[in-house]
């Protein structure tokens, strides 16, 4: 197992710049998520780490050794593909033992390692079956088996649950996380599903347009997004933005939304111009007689909670409230925000302004 460090990694495909100067570190034993929308460069980054693409510039360290220009076969890593890529002309046992055969292990050792892996994954009963007839879940397990059998320095997984149906995906996600916890293997996992990333990851890198937008623990990223993109990409429904023209000074603890003053965490930045107040739906509270009000335009019932969409002078916002709280369409409701949870964004650059509350997260990453 090993630490993986990426420094200023860049990849160009002809004139197209797929990954722009990315840097992050995956600590030993971490379950690390590379998250972003399709085309954001996350898969390219992973493929460079695995040695399936050569970087245009920058360095990749696996266990302290620079491997950027090394062949995939020399990096001692395992890769789980989205489509599993099980060798179709071999049975399950041969698929799992294939990486060991290339290492020149003797037959007895190969057999015992395969048996051990089959036991961990509970696939002993299908070892002699051809891979063609397996169910999605079993294919997934065989693909994992092929990865873990060689005890590599790190596991790389490219949307490994993407080909499974929704119900089963949940189950496999748990299984995968449990497997990781038991083996403690450094794992880099690419996904476009923010829920999957939050659910499974120790740490998340959010990428967009080839740029690392933010890097940190799931909760840090959720609570204190570094950019509007991250705030929108993570969370469902995403963070609300109340756009306004205004100013905030260093040490300031309130912003003025067209006459209404809203308390925010003490600012460490100053900015004048187009700003946006970011608030998570669950931090919007209904309060009769509050200065800021919104008209209800839709209510979605979700069981214990409901999502109420309100029209305000600063744009539509969504609130997540207990479903027993009455909200009827066209009703005017007073709104209040939890001041400790707010983030002010510069609307032009999209970046979050540093405040007392988020400086711990933003200054470090």
């Amino acid at each position: 197992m090993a630490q993986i460090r990426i420094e200023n990694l860049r990849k160009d495909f002809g004139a197209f710049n797929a990954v722009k100067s990315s840097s992050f570190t995956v600590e030993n034993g971490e379950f690390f998520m590379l998250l972003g929308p399709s085309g954001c460069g996350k898969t390219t980054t992973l493929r460079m780490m695995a040695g399936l693409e050569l970087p245009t510039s920058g360095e990749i360290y696996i266990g302290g050794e620079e491997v950027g220009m090394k062949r995939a076969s020399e990096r001692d890593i395992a890769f789980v593909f989205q489509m599993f890529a099980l060798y179709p002309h071999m049975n399950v046992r041969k698929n799992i033992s294939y990486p060991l055969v290339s290492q020149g292990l003797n037959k007895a050792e190969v057999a015992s390692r395969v048996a051990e892996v089959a036991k961990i994954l509970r696939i002993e009963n299908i070892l002699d079956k051809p891979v063609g007839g397996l169910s999605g879940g079993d294919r997934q397990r065989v693909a994992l088996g092929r990865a873990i059998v060689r005890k590599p320095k790190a596991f790389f997984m490219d949307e490994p649950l993407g080909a499974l149906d929704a119900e089963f995906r949940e189950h496999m996600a748990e299984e995968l996380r449990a497997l990781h916890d038991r083996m403690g293997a450094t794992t880099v996992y690419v996904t476009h599903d923010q829920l999957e990333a939050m659910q499974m990851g120790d740490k998340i890198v959010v990428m967009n347009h080839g740029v690392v937008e933010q890097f940190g623990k799931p909760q840090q990223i959720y609570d204190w997004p570094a950019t509007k993109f991250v705030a929108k990409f993570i969370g469902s429904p995403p963070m609300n933005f109340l756009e306004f023209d205004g100013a905030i000074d260093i040490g300031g603890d309130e912003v003025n939304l067209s006459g209404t003053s809203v308390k925010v965490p003490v600012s460490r930045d100053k900015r004048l111009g187009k700003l946006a107040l970011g608030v998570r739906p669950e931090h919007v509270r209904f309060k009769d007689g509050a200065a800021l009000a919104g008209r209800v335009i839709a209510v979605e019932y979700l069981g214990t909670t409901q999502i109420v969409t309100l029209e305000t002078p600063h744009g539509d916002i969504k609130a997540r409230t207990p479903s027993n709280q009455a909200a009827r369409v066209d009703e005017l409701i007073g709104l209040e925000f939890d001041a400790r949870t707010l983030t002010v964004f510069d609307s032009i650059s999209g970046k979050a302004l540093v405040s007392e509350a988020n400086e711990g997260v933003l200054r470090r990453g």
Partner: protein
Amino acid sequence: MSTYSVTEPSGRQKWFAGILVVLYAVITLLPLLWIIGTGFKSPADAIAYPPKMIFEPTVEGYVNLFTTRTRVPEEQLKELGEPTTWYDKLVRKDGVIITGASRFAERFTNSVIIGFGSTVLCIVLGTAAAYAFSRFKVPLKDDLLFFILSTRMMPPIAVAIPIFLMFRSLGLSDTHAGMILLYTAVNLSLSVWLLKGFIDEIPVEYEEAALIDGYTRFQAFYKVVLPQAVTGIASTAIFCLIFAWNEYAFAVLLTSGNAQTAPPFIPTIIGVSGQDWPAVAAGATIFLVPVMVFTILLRKHLLRGITFGAVRK
């Protein structure tokens, strides 16, 4: 909204379909049966009019195919004494004796060497080129592929004269190597295109998985891509072999003594008294066998190969 019936065809429809298939089989197989039948006729029966459907089978045609014979006067025949082998006996009744082996076996061997030689070469070069075109960034890839295809846009015989002159100055005329090279050159474009199609369909992840599992690019190609491409290789091989095996025009033009293949040889089989049709038919029958065996051996792949890509998985 219209619905589509996916019910089983009725009994009458099945009968009708069955009759059509049998009819088609009869039409296509009749010439073949005729040739095979003629091979077992006597020369007189072979040219009888109206054609004889029922005849006394004889292997005279096959004996004639493999031998050269001469007619000798009766006194001389008596001096020779009784024929010792069954084939001697067979020809002796017409007052003919066998003087030696014909060149058919040699021509047939040439066909095998040249046909299979060019097929193997075509597959080896074609697979390598197709893999490269399918997987790597090749500068001017599309232009190169078009150029390769364009070599098939004229009938090969159109360049017979330049090839004849080229072969003469290179010393390739009437050599096995020359014919293998020629047939390979003609077939290679087809082989590259067909195989590229098949290799394109093999997901690149298989090789990437093998690369990560610790194999070199060549090992990944050899151990993972090739087994997947067997279907394509088999059907391509059949197409290449059939062309090289049946090719007549270049063989007539470029070979005579040493490297002549069976197609130009078979029609020239002359019997003691004029054209020997049973021997020609026997030659054609034997000539059919290798391609038939090869196709039957690979038919499972051929069928999949022809319909490959027709249905999205």
